[in-house]
């Protein structure tokens, strides 16, 4: 019995070794190559579009436009310093895009910047086809993937055929030599195969379970139907309404605040119809056409506005007869998380787009960021606070000395305790 088990164990061990090495190798490549798209999305996408000029220039082909790769690295690490130095290309850029100066990303490594460049260069202009629904991850359909898959399948089939042929020939040769053939075990009863298969299934299921559990309660790309088709693109994008005009709480409070109907009415007393249907037809994610003027009428119903008489309907006690709009909340944090908008907007000077994505491009809002703890922490690790600009930070004398002595250029949120539990959980 044992002499039978031993070789089997050996072959299982061999199989596992191969599997592990393969997995490890795949992982290794995953670690080695930074994900350009992810870095772009979390750091650059709030201001840059690969194809179009946004807050900053379109990035596709950026490596060809800049003087050198080294220049690009320096620029990304500290743009203000380059401008201050009087670098020609830098000042040109600044003149073109001022007053906005690009945020510095000292923590991005050269490899990561390269990855971003590779990614932006790989982005194709998809204007020709129908615009894909924003947020859905189906955009990714690289052209030559199917060839690879086909080749793999053909190669696998070839290997299988060769293996069968080989064993067939061996059998024939054995018969010729008079050696007795061992009884062939079909591969699905081969214990090595079964063991390998079970281990693979176990690992995959574990991976899927753990990931599923981690993702539980998160709703990135959540894009619910709202009671009114309110287009941020029309308001914040095309008409350039300041975010803080409506979301006034973002500077003052925890909550950014959804405006009450009377704030809408400040403009919509005059603006009664949507006149931009020519340049920008409104469309739901499902492709349904939306009549902007009808949506404004919905607002009037909520706000208690009589568009014919041009006055508010009033309750007997003189109050405006308005009903609040029951918006569907998109960005949900668990109850044990304390998030304060004013901390980020007023103190950290973080752009809205950093977390909310290119909101000025969205007709219907979807959740751009995962809002996971890892995502928060990552940003806190990479982002610098307004260390020299805000006098609050004068108490960190050590860091100020280090900046003076040139030991450091800035201080990240993490370095002043921004990744500690009770910054967000209490």
């Amino acid at each position, binding site marked *: 019995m044992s002499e039978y088990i031993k070789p089997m164990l050996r072959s299982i061990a061999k199989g596992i070794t191969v599997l592990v090495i393969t997995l490890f190798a795949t992982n290794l490549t995953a670690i080695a190559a930074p994900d350009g798209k992810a870095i772009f999305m979390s750091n650059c996408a709030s201001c840059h579009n690969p194809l179009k000029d946004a807050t900053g220039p379109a990035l596709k082909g950026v490596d060809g436009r800049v003087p050198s790769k080294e220049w690009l690295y320096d620029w990304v690490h500290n743009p203000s310093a380059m401008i201050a130095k009087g670098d020609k290309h830098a000042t040109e850029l600044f003149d073109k895009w001022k007053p906005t100066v690009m945020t510095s990303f000292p923590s991005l490594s050269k490899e990561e910047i390269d990855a971003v460049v590779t990614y932006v260069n790989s982005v194709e202009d998809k204007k020709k086809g129908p615009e894909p629904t924003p947020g859905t991850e189906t955009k990714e359909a690289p052209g030559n993937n199917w060839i690879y898959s086909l080749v793999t399948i053909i190669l696998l089939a070839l290997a299988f055929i060769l293996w069968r042929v080989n064993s067939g020939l061996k059998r024939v040769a054995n018969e010729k030599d008079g050696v007795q053939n061992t009884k062939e075990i079909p591969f699905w009863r081969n214990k090595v195969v079964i063991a390998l298969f079970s281990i693979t299934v176990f690992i995959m299921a574990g991976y899927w379970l753990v990931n599923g559990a981690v993702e*539980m309660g998160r709703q990135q790309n959540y894009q619910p139907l709202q009671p009114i088709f309110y287009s941020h693109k029309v308001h914040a994008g095309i008409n350039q309404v300041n975010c803080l005009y409506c979301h006034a709480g973002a500077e003052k409070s925890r909550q950014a605040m959804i405006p009450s109907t009377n704030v809408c009415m400040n403009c919509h007393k005059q603006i009664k119809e949507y006149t931009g249907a020519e340049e920008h037809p409104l469309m739901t994610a499902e492709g349904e056409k939306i009549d902007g003027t009808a949506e404004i009428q919905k607002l009037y119903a909520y706000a208690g506005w009589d568009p014919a008489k041009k006055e508010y309907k009033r309750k007997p006690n003189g109050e405006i007869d308005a009903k609040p709009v029951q*918006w569907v909340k998109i960005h949900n944090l668990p109850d044990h998380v304390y998030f304060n908008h004013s901390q980020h907007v007023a103190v950290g000077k973080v752009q809205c787009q950093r977390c909310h994505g290119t909101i000025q491009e969205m007709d219907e809002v979807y959740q751009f960021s995962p809002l996971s703890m890892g995502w928060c922490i990552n940003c806190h690790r990479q982002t610098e606070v307004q260390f020299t600009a805000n006098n*609050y930070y004068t108490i960190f004398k050590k860091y100020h000395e280090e900046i003076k002595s040139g030991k450091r250029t800035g201080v990240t949120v993490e370095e002043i305790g921004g990744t500690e539990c009770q910054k967000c959980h209490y």
Partner: protein
Amino acid sequence: MSQKQYWKGLEELQNTAAHQEVVDNEFKEPLPGISDSLLDATTPRRDFLKFLGFSTVAATLAASCEMPVRKAIPYAIKPEDIVPGVPNYYASTFVDGGDYCAIVIKTRDGRPIKVEGNTLSSITKGSTSARVQASVLNLYDKARLRQPMMDGKEATFDAIDRGLQSALASNTKPVYLISSTIISPTSKEVINQFLAKYPNAKHIVYDAVSYSGMLLANEASYGKRALPSYHFDKAKTIVSLGADFLGTWLAPVEFSKQYSAGRKVTAKNLEMSKHYHVESMHTITGASADMRATCKPSEMGAVAVALYNAVNGTAPSLPSKKLNELVTKAAADLKKGNGMVVCGSNDVNIQTVVNAINSAINANGTTINWAVTSNYKAGIDSDIVAATEAMAKGEVGAAMILGVNPAYEIGKKFADALKNVPVRVSFADRMDETAQLCNYVVPDHNYLESWGDAEPKTGYYSLMQPGIAPLFKTRAYQDSLLAWSGSTTTYGDMWKNYWTTKLGGQSNFDKALQDGIVEPAGEMPMGGGTFAGNIANATAAIAAMKPTSGMEVVVYQKVSIGHGGAWSNNPWLQEMPDPITKATWDNYACVSPKKAKELGEELTGITEVVTKKRVIKLEANGQTLMLPIVVVPGMHNDVVAVALGYGRDAQIGRAGASGTDKLKGDFGGKNAYPLVGYNGQTFTYNAAAKIEKTDATYEVGITQTHHSYEGRPIIHEFTLEEFSKDPNALLKERGEEIAKYSVVPWGEHEAHGEKKEELATQEVEEGFRKEGTLYPNYEHMGIHWGMSIDLTACTGCGACVVGCMAENNISVVGKTHVLKSQEMHWLRIDRYFSGMPDDPDTIQTVFQPMMCQHCDNAPCENVCPVSATNHSSEGLNQMAYNRCIGTKYCANNCPYKVRHFNWMDWNGADCFDDNQYEDGRRDDLNDDLTRMVLNPDVTVRSRGVMEKCSFCVQRLQDAKLTAKKEGRPVKDGEAKTACQQACASDCIVFGNVNDPESEISKIRKDNKERVFYVLEQIHTLPNVNYLSKIRNTDEIWAGNEEKDGLYKAHI
């Protein structure tokens, strides 16, 4: 001093077996989970797999639920001054009868969630009490009436107005308005209008706990039926004859502030008032006293007379040696000037003698102020007695009851008399004992919903504004009275008119409303009074009072529940441990250890560890009460004390209700008001009593022995004399402990550690911090938060405990779980006795507020397997609830026993609906209405996680954010913890230790002789320091074994 032994309770002194067991088993209950029955089962493996499978499936099912669609609903029309998520603060006034406090209401998104003191008031100076802190919960009390009632049925205000007006019109007999003391000038005007409308109407004022004796004595002595203003801060010698002025007497909030101001001791400033105290039971004022003696309540008159005589040069001859000594010393000190005598008795003669003493020592005009009188109490007992008699005779046409509950407080006599009155109106906010007897119940607003004002002292005003629109169909009683007197204006308009006119214009009014107070500028004027009382008559009357032999009963107010009223139904107050007995949720008979022994109790039965208490039969004033005994060292041996405010009717609310449950037996305590007597002139709060042992027992939830230090030295106490002679004694003692660890043996200063009498200097402390551990040191670069607690100033009043509950959404667990040591208070006040239990006059009591010490080298952090508790760069010991898996290792490893585990889902915080814990009395807290009190900035903890004091991190973060927005560092005093803000005695100081200019840094530097850290030698490096207790006394009775011998001999 190091020989002084403190004991939390008698069991610790005796180290009984039961106590030992409690000490050994930190978690009283066996852990739930895999029980022995599982392992004993025939197929343990299969059962285990079944459990495993079930829980996996359950978890999968729970997890596969879809994400709910949440709505974000903005205001339809946003009020201009509300920013969602940013609190608004409104200055207002807390009034409960004559109890007064200037407050600031914190509202979040339109609902009051916290009450703070108003620092602009020159009277309360930003202080609060436990009741003021808890008052916000009364607003959301589920037992409140939601609409007016007529003849037991719901009615509209219109119907009531019509019915009542016609009833009053056809009535020819007098109309009685029976109310508590009213300190609102506009309300008085409304009442006058009402009285004018019905010519034979009469306003009868009485207070649930009466001060008539004082009022009448003052009238006889000074010609004013008023109460003076007391200035405890200006007094060098304070003699209190049974007046619990730090806990319940007259205006404890005001007095605590003044009292602590006179007792700020440093090595450089040794000025400290001297406080003599005579009492029959043990109050917190007695605990703070420098010299304390006990007497029977019937002897209090004799003590007052003896003190009067002593001041005039006659030596006292009182029954106890200690009393004689105290009276002699006190008289000598009083004669030095700046003295003050206060007395808690409601007897006119005793108060007259006290007035005579105060006059003799020239207190009037120096410490007692007759130029500005206090309006706190105005009730005259004989009025209500006469009114009751008139009602009983059927001479009264209508009785309107406002702010009092005579059917409970005066009792059956009043309830029977009320039945003879045809029109009975109550303004009560709930169906209390009196409202149930009324045919009209017209509920008044809660004070947080009302406009109003107060005049606590003549010429000193305070305005009241609402923090929320009325929640229910209630109406201000002033509006009701105005409506019934045929007026067309509303009280709101009238009030505004009154103040705009008085203050001269809208802008002045706005300013006053914003400040909340209207006070004359400058210091309060002082004025004396000429004593014109008849001291001879008073002395003769006192001499004629026969001292009773045998037991006497004292009826007292608890610091938490007070006179009863709505407070009885406040779960925060019910669960707040009484400062002295540390008992929750009940009243009981307090007796001395000696008396308990005489009752035949074994030690195990009289201590606090054993929860089952012997029930005694207490007979006094013709009444019989069955009450459990709670042994209180420091009680006079012949006195039994019972608290008011219990034994309430079921309709006043679930938390306050009393009764008998089929399964659990009695609950909710007994009503002690029937023990109150009447001597023909005033109510008396003591009586001769008989007690008798029964075989029954009753469980009382007492918290003190729940978290034991097992006798380790954690309090340092000195007499003022010791301290002035050797201020460095504490530094030396600390130095002896820590200096040896402050250098490494292989370091350069090898000789350093061998020096004797090492002082705990900054150098030594630094060395100890760095070298006393293997763990790395934390660098606190920006802010390093720290707290200092002054044990001399702490009176144990419990305001901080309730303030903490309100700020941090702390769960109330109910009596059942208090009995299991599972109370959740983040901040507890430990009470330590010292002295000989046998002799009440030797007992000295110390309070020590204890919360998470935020150790820089925290034992809890190292043992957490998931790092749910760890250290912040600002010195906070952080607790991440969502990370906690409930191993409780941290609680086991915490030397201060300040971590609390959520054994149940107290608040409906976890996602399983039916997990919520219910016990009957505390359940209203989970009601949607009551949950409105929760602070939205603090997570409501769910079952299975550990929690503890966070240094109010939400406030610290808020202060930092404000500073960042304004681009400046945090100012000292900007970040205040809830306990610090609530404290009336200024004993808690909090701030940034890294800032040398902050108050906390200054205390640790300038008062370093008193600074100590609890269990410092174990190198936890707490961020909370204490200041040693200094008592201005020359006697150390307390627990010196050499002097007193073994304690056992005394019990």
